[in-house]
């Protein structure tokens, strides 16, 4: 079956931005994710951010790998070209696309499986090359699309829907990115739009590699926290029917809390995680401190959210390798092909 385009009925009352576009204009095809999936909330935040930024949608390119998260690039900005590439390989596609045309905005959406497992190498090297892009990880600690295996960002000792126990330490992508000298590193929570939208906007304005690690609960295979509470409706049922084939529609999990606060967020399966929002006076310009902050809070069982680190020296791959200011894909063949005369001269040097 073919996915449907959302009906484009323009409500005259819908608010327009300076480009004359409404939020609707920033939408994409209908989401096919599970009702209540955190990824849909992220999609909404991206739409909001683009609307507020007054972005001409076609000047943005949407890139992704494979996974539930990677599907979401189809669910926003229909007027932007999208590339749903291969599992774990979005960074390479983004690098090539960016080299071809430095003038577009590159927004990559990935999952934790896509980034922290099969795609870890490309992720790390995109960071290192200071690729000018926004890299969003919709981090649910699981392989949603392949039905709930643990990912490398999953917390040690949490339980999967099938009852297995995660034996390995979680990989913290923000800490990793800071260690690898990413330019902009932030963490958000899908249910906290108040924090998320501004983060996405800043990331889009940043020149260089901007990582947004967004905790985005999976309603179906959610297993974020180590909670092993005894009453667990969904798990009970799904075991019961012996196939993980009943996914009741869930509400999106939201969290609104202030800077400097810590909240307990309850997941769909009844487990919980503790989010800590950075203090207002936190200074994100110091990488050492950012790293330590993440590590210390983590040791206390908390996940820090907010803009963790920003390198104010906004270098990007193009400035490093000194490509021309103009998009390479707009150079004419006449400019690119030296022509017969230099070839004659070259022939002479080869004699």
């Amino acid at each position: 079956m073919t996915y449907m385009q959302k009906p484009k009925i323009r409500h005259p009352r819908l608010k327009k931005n300076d480009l004359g576009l409404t939020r609707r204009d920033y939408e994409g095809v209908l989401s096919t994710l599970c009702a209540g999936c955190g990824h849909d909330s992220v999609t909404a935040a991206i739409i909001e951010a683009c609307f507020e930024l007054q972005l001409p949608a076609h000047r943005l390119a949407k890139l992704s790998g494979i996974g539930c998260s990677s599907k979401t690039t189809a669910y926003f900005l229909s007027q932007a070209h999208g590339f749903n590439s291969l599992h774990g390989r979005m960074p390479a596609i983004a690098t090539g696309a960016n080299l071809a045309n430095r003038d577009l905005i590159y927004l990559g959406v990935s999952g934790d499986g896509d980034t922290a497992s099969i795609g870890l190498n490309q992720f790390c090297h995109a960071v290192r090359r200071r690729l000018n892009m926004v890299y969003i990880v919709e981090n649910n600690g699981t392989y949603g699309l392949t039905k709930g295996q643990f990912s490398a960002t999953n917390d040690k000792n949490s339980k999967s829907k099938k009852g297995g126990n995660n034996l390995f330490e979680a990989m913290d992508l923000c800490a990793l990115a800071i260690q690898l000298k990413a330019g902009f590193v932030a963490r958000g929570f899908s249910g906290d739009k108040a924090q998320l939208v501004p983060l996405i906007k800043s990331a889009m304005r940043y020149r260089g590699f901007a990582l947004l690690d967004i905790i985005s609960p999976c309603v179906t295979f959610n297993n974020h926290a180590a909670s092993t509470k005894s009453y667990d409706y969904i798990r009970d049922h799904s075991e019961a029917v012996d196939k993980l084939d009943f996914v009741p529609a869930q509400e999106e999990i939201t969290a609104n809390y202030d800077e400097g606060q810590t909240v307990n967020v309850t997941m769909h399966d009844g487990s919980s995680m503790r989010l800590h929002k950075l203090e207002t006076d936190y200074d994100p310009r110091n990488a050492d401190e950012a790293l330590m902050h993440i590590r210390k809070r983590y040791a206390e069982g908390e996940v820090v959210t907010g803009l963790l680190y920003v390198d104010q020296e906004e270098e990007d791959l193009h400035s490093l390798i000194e490509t021309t200011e103009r998009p390479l894909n707009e150079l004419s063949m006449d400019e690119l092909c030296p022509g017969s005369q230099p070839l004659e001269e070259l022939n002479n040097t080869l004699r």
Partner: protein
Amino acid sequence: MTGVNDFVVKFANVNGSGSASANSFFAKALFRMGLPVSPKNIFPSNIQGLPTWFEVRISEAGHLARREGVDIMVAMNPQTYAQDVEEVVSGGYLIYDSTREREFGRDDINVLGIPIARLCAFAFDDPRHRQLFKNIVYVGALAGLVGIEISVIEQIIFEQFKRKEHLNDANLKALHIGLDYSLEKFKCPLPLRVRQSDAATGKIMISGNDAAGLGCIYAGATVAAWYPITPSTSLAEAFERYLNKYRIDECGRKLGAVVQAEDELAAVGIAIGAGWNGARAFTATSGPGISLMSEFIGLAYFAEIPVVIFNVQRGGPSTGMPTRTQQSDIIACAYASHGDTRHVLLFPSDPKECFEMAAEAFDLAERLQTPVIVMSDLDIGMNTWVVDPLEWDDSRKHDRGKVLDAEALEALKEKWGRYKDSDGDGIPYRTIPGTHPEKGAYFTRGSSHTEYASYTEDGLVNAKNLARLLRKFKTAMSMVPRPTINQRDENSKLGIIYFGGTDHAVREGLDLLERDGYRLNALRLRAFPFSPDVAAFAAAHERVFVIEQNRDGQMRSLLITEAGIQAEKLIPVLNFDGMPLSGAFVAGCIQSTIETNEHVANALRLSVRAV
């Protein structure tokens, strides 16, 4: 062993000793004297201290294939004396460093001892110089022995070191030490000698990787992503060099980007990302890289993204023989990736064609919106060949294929479908991101999709799209370079099909066969899919030898299944020892088959009767 302007010199050295440069001076000098030469560098997969050889065939007749048997061996590596001495043909010469004299146990060759180390020890103080200039000393000696005009070498040295006078002087000194010694001690020149010629006049010397890198510049490629691997590394490096030479804007910035990727998966992915975004982009790799790239190649095939891949083939399988040549990635490339895929391959035969096919490859990739793999190899890519000068027709238009720009999108009447076959040739129209605010955006993916690029799980819709891809591949047949045919005898019922760097060997083989009374026609494949000429050629012959440098007769398999040629008709002639092919090998295999295989003999009889 032959005589004037026709012999083989081989240098046996230790790598890292500076011999490669000196040996190339020697080859270059012969070339400057107007002689076709074919230097072959046979090097180990390490950096220093292992045996390495450099073979130079001089052939005024223009035979540039390897010839087995060495006429003059410059044996500088005691580690390999035994095998080196053995290779010298009867009546040939062995030159060695006689600072420590020794016996070689062959009476049928001439041993010329030159106390090279001693001469250097006298002449130079710096122990590194003593080491390095041994190479120039033997070049000087050779110059005397085979009669190279010394001024030619002097000039080459001068060009090399013009910015470094002290080195120039030291090199010249070493050169003359060798020259003087040989003139004084030996009867110079030997019967094996050179004379000024015009056989190579106007030609150039260049390696295939260098030429291919340059071809990418001329094709207007702007994005190159690669990962180092022998023997493809120098292709990407050449592109970068020429980029810095020819493509710097007013502000000193580059009209092009080169990225050394973290691995081959990333390298090809970057090229594909750039190709999707409207830049001409490529990667260069070798066997292991092709294996790693295969998932992405499948994506580019199915999502229809132009990308050019240079596969400079080396000895497989696995890590295999990284510094030896083979043509053994044919199947791996023709069908790279899982599922039903087929890819366009080009087969250059020499550096000049590397240049031309590099340029051609980008046109094809964009016209067909698919990966195009240029199948070079170590011999073509890394060795320096004497070829006709490179040419570029300034009136030539780069064919970017079916791309809709903003205007075209505005003008469109019917609903545009990214994967719609509007023209019946299987090739759809594409758009580049950022082109138009409202039109032409689509969603690229490796999963099954409709004509309008939407995701579909409708098996019939998908099957229809797959069938269109077949149609497109058929269209490719008429777009790719046609084979060249060497029709030696209209009546001959025996043919040869071959491709790539064995061209010289096959042509020499044909000559040798003709000398022995066998006249065969030959077809050189230049591309896959096969043009209908190929099947026609096969149809016109009773038996066709398929010459290839792999174990499994991979091209022969393709000819059977893809060109529909009967298997019995195609006789494999296989070589997979990693060395460039020789004409004698070709002729020998064919001749012995003629003499032992009754079908071939019959075909021969048919040809004769036809005459």
